[in-house]
């Protein structure tokens, strides 16, 4: 009876569900951007581009079981592509972002092509080298990449139809938010499709997966390329929002904080990526406030976010591997059980079945 009702309410097709979800999120983002101040709109914009990157990274690590410490550098590829195309070639924004996605996917293919061999610690080491080595290219070719100062582009102009007083920050939030919505839609479909299943199959048991006819190396490379494309879009959006691409923004610390964010949010969960993005945006401000209220020295306050990231990584892995979203899911499951029991009439058997369902998909949604 309950199931029949649910079937009536929600569309069955994954595609439609994802579309509905993305639209709902779009409306929520729109309302939020209208209500928030200019500064908070900017926060919303940076949260959106972080989310784009984290969505890719969480699929890579959570679903296909690979680790990348180089996503900050992949963001740099996207950011520099956008600044070069928009600044020098005067491309429009959307094709420039598309080019950023393509370029980064290409670089991701080169880095990830070795993915057939670069398993576990090898991939981690290679991407670590990538993260440390790539920003140095800006110094090597200062004429193209602007050296340590980086490249600057003009801010995006809101269309005149929105009125002359339309705040730039809100427009940036819309651009980055639109990117995030596209990614939500695509990644949600991907994780629930046959491709997503093949990612999980390869993660859980490579030998069994290859016995089922999957080419393990190819699946892993595909996962890396998909998540590199997300990082490229995220980096491109970052360049649009900040109007800047500079090597200092893409150092190893960025890659490591991205990894922290996906672990904290909950590996493999797109909702977890939202939590992670929120943490990335809000933590520096909080630690600043904290440092102010306790009048800590600049050495301490500058390094406070990093220290928190490190602690979070260790504690999360040792104590709470499912992250924030795992906790939220558990709370929802408990609440549901209590609710059902209170309504009554539901046989105990059905109850058990539903909690099993909850536990069976810790890496989805």
């Amino acid at each position: 009876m309950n199931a029949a009702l649910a079937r009536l309410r929600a569309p069955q097709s994954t595609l439609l569900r994802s579309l509905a979800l993305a639209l709902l999120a779009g409306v929520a983002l729109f309302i939020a951007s209208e209500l928030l101040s200019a500064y908070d709109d900017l926060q919303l914009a940076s949260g959106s581009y972080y989310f784009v990157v984290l969505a890719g990274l969480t699929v890579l690590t959570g679903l296909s079981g690979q680790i990348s410490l180089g996503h900050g550098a992949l963001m740099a590829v996207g950011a520099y592509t956008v600044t070069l195309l928009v600044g020098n070639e005067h491309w429009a924004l959307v094709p420039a972002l598309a080019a950023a996605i393509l370029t980064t996917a290409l670089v991701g293919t080169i880095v990830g092509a070795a993915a057939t061999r670069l398993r576990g610690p090898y991939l981690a080491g290679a991407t670590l080298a990538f993260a440390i080595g790539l920003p140095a290219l800006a110094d090597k070719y200062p004429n193209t990449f602007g050296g340590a100062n980086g490249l600057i582009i003009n801010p995006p102009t809101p269309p005149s139809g929105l009125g002359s007083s339309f705040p730039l920050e809100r427009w940036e939030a819309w651009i980055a938010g639109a990117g995030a919505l596209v990614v939500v839609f695509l990644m949600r479909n991907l994780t629930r499709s046959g491709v997503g299943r093949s990612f999980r199959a390869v993660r859980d048991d490579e030998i069994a997966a290859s016995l089922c006819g999957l080419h393990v190396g190819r699946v892993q490379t595909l996962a890396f390329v998909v998540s590199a494309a997300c990082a490229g879009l995220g980096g491109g959006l970052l360049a649009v929002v900040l109007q800047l691409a500079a090597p200092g923004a893409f150092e190893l610390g960025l890659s490591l904080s991205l990894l922290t964010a996906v672990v904290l949010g909950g590996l493999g969960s797109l909702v977890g990526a939202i939590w992670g993005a929120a943490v990335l945006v809000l933590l520096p401000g909080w630690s600043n406030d904290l440092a102010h209220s306790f009048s800590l020295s600049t050495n301490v306050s500058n390094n406070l976010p990093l220290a928190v990231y490190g602690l979070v990584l260790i504690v999360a892995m040792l104590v709470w591997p499912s992250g924030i979203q795992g906790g939220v899911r558990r709370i929802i499951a408990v609440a549901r059980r209590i609710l059902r029991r209170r309504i009554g009439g539901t046989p105990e058997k059905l109850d058990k079945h539903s909690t099993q369902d909850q536990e069976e998909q810790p890496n989805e949604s």
Partner: protein
Amino acid sequence: MTRFIDLTLNGISTGAVYAAVALALVMIWRATRIVNFAQGGMLMITTFIASSVIGSSGSYWLGFAVALVCGLVLGAVVERVLMRRVEGGPPLNAVIVALGLLILLEAGAGMIWGNTPRSFPPAFSIRGYDVGGTTLLFSPNDTFTVLVVVAVAVGLALLFRYTAVGLRMRASALAPEVARLLGVRVGRMFTLGWALAAFVGSLAGLLVAPSVFVGPNQFDPILIFGFTAAVLGGLDSPPGAVVGGILLGLALSYVSGYEGASLVTLAALVVLIAVLMIRPGGLFSTRKERRV
């Protein structure tokens, strides 16, 4: 030609340092199948401690000794407190915990000593030897570096091969269950392995600090080079790590000398990927590569 000789000599002395870091990584990999990405942070901390001790006492050798002892202790503590919990689990978890520790150590060092890199004194003169009127790019300090690393490598080889403790450590790494049945305290052997590895790592930090300076992030590239050297040597073999370190040192010295220092890390990445594509088991692998 002199430039080539200079770069070769320089490559040997920097390669010796990479070899030491690679040794530290290989020892831990052999014992617990974990790549210790925190090694860069651990040797950074001990070098900072040395820097502080040297600054306050004025004695280089006191700082040197204190750093090595701290390395031993730090390695043992890290294994016992953190890594013991993720050993034998999914490799991803161990990598993430090691990275968390790396970030935490770097942030901690930044809080205590600040983010601005500071200079570090060399053990001996860094003025190159004069040979026939030209000054070579190889100094008494470089000689010291190479000799120390060779001594440590030989010492470790002797320890593993000819002592009872070495035998127990090898047994624990090779077959933990069997070793435990035969009365070996496997956990204690792992702790000892980590302590020794961190000791070698902190030595590498002390040796390389005069040229890279001491700062929270100064040793990140050293970690990469050590890892690349270890992979070059097969990640499983201490002699391979030493040879891999020297080879990588030479290769990177030529890249740096002829193409520019900013490309060195990317060159290491290219070496890493090339080795893994062509000989995934390292240059000296006898085992068949892992197949799926």
